[in-house]
């Protein structure tokens, strides 16, 4: 009777309990976070792409939970790469959020800290088969809006419906 949503929600939150910790705990405060109140507006849009590891996240760390992929360390949303997009592209027919929040994530491949822009893709319904990840490394309430992941970041777009979230590496953390 009430099993309806269990499975659905297990996907949403189960991972928070286990997988985040390994990666997240290792990281202390980032210097980026120490810049009082600063944040990003959107990821770079027309810049060249370079050297980031584009391996499927599933290949990472020997787990099949895509939420454990390192660049998702502060994501809160449905994965675009399971919604018709990729780690850095919105699904066809959607629009990129004009604003975004930011995480500072540690790449286990090179040991470096990267700034990750979490943009929402907008204007379509969320995809029920897509995995929802809820990671919160460095996350802060709305008094540090650029670090806050509990708002609809499609809010500044013409079409404000939340579709999914990408994790775009935009630079080194320091």
């Amino acid at each position, binding site marked *: 009777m009430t099993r309806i949503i269990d499975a659905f929600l297990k996907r949403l939150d189960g991972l928070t309990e286990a997988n985040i910790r390994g990666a997240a705990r290792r990281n202390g405060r980032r210097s980026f976070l120490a*810049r009082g*109140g*600063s*944040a*990003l*507006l*959107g*990821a*770079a*849009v*027309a*810049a*060249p*792409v*370079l*050297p*980031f590891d584009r391996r499927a996240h599933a290949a990472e760390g020997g787990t099949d939970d895509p939420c454990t992929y390192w660049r998702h360390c502060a994501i809160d949303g449905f994965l675009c790469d*399971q*919604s*018709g*997009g*990729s780690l*850095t*592209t*919105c*699904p*066809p*027919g*959607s*629009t*990129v959020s*004009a*604003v975004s929040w930011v995480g500072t994530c540690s790449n286990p491949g090179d040991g470096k800290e990267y*700034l990750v*822009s979490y*943009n929402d*893709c907008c*204007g*379509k*319904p969320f*995809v*029920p*088969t*897509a995995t929802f990840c809820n990671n919160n490394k460095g996350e802060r309430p709305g*008094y*540090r*809006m*650029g670090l806050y992941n509990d708002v609809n970041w499609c809010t*500044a*777009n*013409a079409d404000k*419906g939340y579709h999914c979230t*990408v994790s*775009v*590496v*935009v*630079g*080194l953390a320091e």
Partner: protein
Amino acid sequence: MKHHLIIALTAMAVPGSHAFGQEADIQPETLTVEERISEGEHVYVMDMGISGPSQVSVLNAEDLSMEGNIGAGNFSQMLMSPDRSTLYTSSVYQRRYTYGEIEAVVHEWDAATLNARREFTISDKLAQTLSQKGVLNLSADGAYLVVQNATPATSVNIVDLTAGADLVEIPTPGCWTAYPTIEGHAFSTLCGDGTVTKYGYAPDGSAGEPAKSEKIFDSDTNPLFGNAVRVDGNLVYVSYAGALHVVDDSGEVPVLVRTVDFAEEGWAPSGYNLMGYHEPSKTLFITMNSTPFDGSHKLPAEEIWAIDMESGNVTGRGAANGESSIAVSGGETPAIFGIDHLGGVHRYEVTLGDSVTITKAVSREGVAFFPTIVATDY
């Protein structure tokens, strides 16, 4: 892909992209929108929204992976254009989601980019009904949409696609579904009095008198499904008991030209959009269950049967997966896509010949909450 910069945000710095990549070996990634779904073949699965948006999931036909989606209103209908370039939806938006004024909206979606090319409102008498083939169709010349209304009094709305506006509402009391004739400006509808009735209309907005067939079925004792398919120009309906009713609606009055009583003892058709036709091989596919009773006509499918429309013989049977609706692809050899009552999608491979085989190749579970109708772009 607009990128507004919100300059009033005092809480936020606004680094240009050059603010990153200070180190020579690091350049920021580019965030873009996928221009289109993959080249190739796809399946469009309608998840009909009751309290929220309807959603069309677009899957890769080969592995059923997710390539994108489309959002529409409540009780959405869906139609793939003959050239596979446009997916039409018609649906209802409520101003307060579950109450308030409504707007009935037609969308023309680019089937590859999943962008809306256009949307416009039509009569809000649009039937709020489970997505089915007889509710949203294109006229033979592609110039008009033929739309089933229900208030619940039934009528058919002719929508002028050039104008993006209603042309004429034609009352069709006691009748349901509207299949455009394969030539001219007319449609045929199935009526409770046991007839197929044809209505004509003209680009000036005038409508002709109904032309009724003889009584071809009895809605009490031998009802037909509303779902029909075109087979070599004729309309083919199927009875709850399992007899195809082939109707020629090209003349002045629709005529029953043939019945094919194909269901073996102990089997009957069941489902919603339960038939699909493969023209090159003259094969009709239909979902079946083995326990006919009064009320079994919507049971999940146990088998999919193939019927040779020349001989009228059942030429193949394959195990099904609880499908409620199917779609059959084009191509020399068809694929069958089924959506089951639990929201799963299944692709079946078919081998043709005197004996047809139907074998499940791929499944993807949980695609939809209320799966209703499925289409292909090939």
